[in-house]
């Protein structure tokens, strides 16, 4: 493996991150030169410098190997999370090194979990950086690099092979160059539209922009301690519900819908399943909340239930209510949503609806095979036959996911967390949801966890964001040379 080539491409990603830090410093400057200005400016400079050296010395290459591709993607995420700590560390406040690491990883992996007890104390520049990290993370550090830095040439295809899950790639019927354009078109477009709508609904420009970035990145970072509950506005919640729901759908399908192509959201079985799941779970939870008397009228129960279900399923993690006080049925269903999450090819994390759908089909096929031993049964999605390798990968992923959740729960309980907190925090971190239940509920945060556990949680977030195998494979490659 050519280490210098790997470093060069990681350097490119760092330049991109530095640009966002600089933009955040600009926000600080516009807000009466708040205390975030110099930490952000220095961080931008440090990050740019770190990224500059490889670009200065290593020439671009036309071909990169698979191992190099993996190393670039995983390395980019890790380095992004590390340099993302700089503004927090330099600014100080509640940000100890572990807290800064947690917040940075939480942002880039779009988990949205926080260690901050008083978010509103942060200067605007820092809040913008938080939202930026979520926005960059939403689309994937490397995917951004692919579009912004055209010098990658043929290696662009290699990198996208590593960055995007196999299922997501199957749904894209375009060339890699087009895929990256689609991602940017849909992502930037959605963010801009959401910003305008939130402004129209009553938020100020800053809040609407940061919340739009966070919603489209399915991160859930808010600028308020009470999250979306602060605004208590049905219009804002409705806009965010739509933005989050769309962000949980495959971007290629969204693009196809906008451009009037055949494989649009109305024809996609996966999207139908996803929307159906959101609707049915919301209704069941609303009925449960209403009958238990948690909300006085059904409308209110439906409003909060829909927001929380969409927020959790899309792995955003915004909150309008304290879900810890909800019924057991509601909690179990929300945990289910935390596991399944959105569609492949979207900014959401978790197991993905696609995998659940395929797993159900595989189970169905297996049962049919029990009856007809010699039958040749193929698994199809939207008329496309799924390869055996894809099916095997899906089932392996599900097993790995469950094992990781169990390991996570054991570690959390080892550190003294109760079972609810341990189990749900483990899922919330691996699926990049953010809020769990118990001590890490929708209105609480991860501040009270011990430092080691915060570090472990951040690691789980990274593993989840890199679709488990992307991260693990890094440690199991026989030879890096």
């Amino acid at each position, binding site marked *: 493996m050519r280490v*210098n080539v790997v*470093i060069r491409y990681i350097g490119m990603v760092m330049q991109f991150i530095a640009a966002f830090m600089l933009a955040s410093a600009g926000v600080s400057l516009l807000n009466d030169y708040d*205390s975030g200005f*110099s*930490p952000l*400016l*220095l961080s931008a*400079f*440090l990050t740019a*410098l*770190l990224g*500059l*050296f*490889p670009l*200065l*010395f*290593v*020439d671009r290459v036309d071909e990169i190997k698979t191992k190099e591709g993996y190393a670039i993607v995983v390395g980019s995420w890790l380095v992004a999370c590390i340099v993302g700590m*700089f503004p927090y*560390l*330099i*600014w*100080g*406040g509640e940000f100890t090194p572990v807290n800064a690491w947690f917040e940075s990883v939480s942002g880039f992996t779009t988990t949205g979990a926080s260690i901050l007890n008083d978010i509103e104390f942060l200067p605007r520049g820092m809040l913008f950086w938080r939202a930026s990290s979520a926005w960059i993370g939403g689309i994937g550090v490397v995917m951004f690099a692919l579009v912004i830095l055209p010098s990658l040439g043929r290696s662009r295809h290699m990198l996208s092979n590593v960055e995007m899950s196999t299922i997501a790639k199957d749904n894209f019927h375009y060339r890699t160059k087009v895929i990256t354009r689609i991602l940017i078109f849909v992502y930037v477009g959605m963010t801009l539209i959401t910003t305008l709508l939130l402004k129209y609904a009553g938020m100020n420009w800053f809040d609407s922009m940061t919340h739009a970035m966070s919603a489209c990145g399915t991160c859930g970072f808010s600028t308020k301690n009470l999250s979306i509950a602060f605004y208590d506005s049905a219009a804002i919640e409705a806009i965010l519900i739509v933005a989050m729901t769309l962000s949980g759908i495959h971007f290629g399908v969204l693009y196809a819908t906008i451009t009037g192509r055949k494989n649009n959201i109305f024809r996609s079985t996966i999207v139908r399943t996803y929307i159906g799941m959101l609707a049915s779970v919301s209704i069941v939870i609303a009925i449960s909340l209403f009958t238990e008397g948690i909300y006085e009228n059904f409308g209110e129960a439906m409003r909060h239930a829909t927001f929380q279900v969409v927020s959790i399923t899309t792995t955003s993690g915004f909150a309008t209510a304290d879900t810890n006080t909800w019924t057991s049925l509601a909690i179990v269903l929300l945990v289910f949503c935390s596991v399944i999450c959105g569609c492949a090819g979207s900014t959401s994390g978790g197991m993905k609806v696609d995998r659940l759908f395929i797993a159900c089909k595989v189970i169905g096929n297996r049962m049919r095979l029990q009856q007809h031993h010699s039958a040749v049964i193929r698994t199809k999605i939207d008329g496309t036959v799924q390869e055996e390798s894809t099916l095997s990968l899906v089932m392996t992923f599900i097993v790995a996911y469950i094992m990781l959740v169990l390991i996570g729960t054991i570690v959390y309980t080892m550190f003294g967390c109760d079972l609810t907190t341990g189990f749900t925090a483990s899922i919330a971190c691996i699926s990049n949801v953010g809020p769990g239940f118990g001590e890490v509920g929708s209105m609480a945060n991860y501040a009270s966890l011990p430092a080691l556990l915060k570090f472990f949680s951040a690691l789980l977030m990274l593993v989840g964001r890199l679709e488990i195998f992307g991260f693990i494979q890094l440690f199991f490659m026989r030879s890096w040379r």
Partner: protein
Amino acid sequence: MFDRVKNNLRINSLARRLRVAFTSIILLLIFSGAMSLLELERVSHDTEEILMASKSNVDIAGEMIAALNEQNDAMIYMAVVGDERESRRVQCLNSIEHLRLATESACERMSTTENVVAADSLRMQAERINQMATDYLDKRVHLHILETEAADSITPFNTQIWYADQYKVQYMNMSRHITKYMTGTNSTLGPEVNNLSHTARRAVTPVFISLLVMLVVVIMFYYFLRVYYLNPVLRINRSLGDYLTYKMPFDEGIEARDELKTLRDHIAQLISKLN
């Protein structure tokens, strides 16, 4: 024109690469140093402000205590000892005015720190004790007039009991209020002290992080220099040495670029001319 500018900007020579690298490192050092200095300047400014605020609080409290004690002295002389000289009366009147003024400035400071309730309480207590002293002075004047007209027909005003039962209680209350003012105003400096510690941290952390980044940059710098310059130079040297000891031919396949590539090509050219 555009191509010329582009070519000028392109970093494709050893000298240019090194120049950019060193300039960046120097800029980083200057920038992080400047930032630390800026934050240190802020620390110094904040410290000065906190100390000034604290000193000012102590001064005002001192003025209040001095005025209160002055008033108390005058009251003891007049009410307990029975010293009815005009100078005592003037002393008492002065102390009333001093206490009023000192309390006003204390209340003004407290209202700026949003401690309005405590300010009102202090003001009321000062007014109460001042009113008591004023009443006493008025009553003494009144009694004096009465005594000269019909000294035996009135019940004498027992000033000692009045001092012990009424004035002293208010005096103690006022002392407590002044102490409260001192501790209260100093505790309102708490957030500023916290800010100060944050600023102090911001002055140290940039240097620490810059050093870490510098370490990484230096390692990278060394790695790239070794891979792209040192190793090719060593290989050219070895190959040239081999050639001189008749281990022909000169290895032209050495991976080199920019000035090193030119050097390798020139050596190869020279050898071909010699041959």
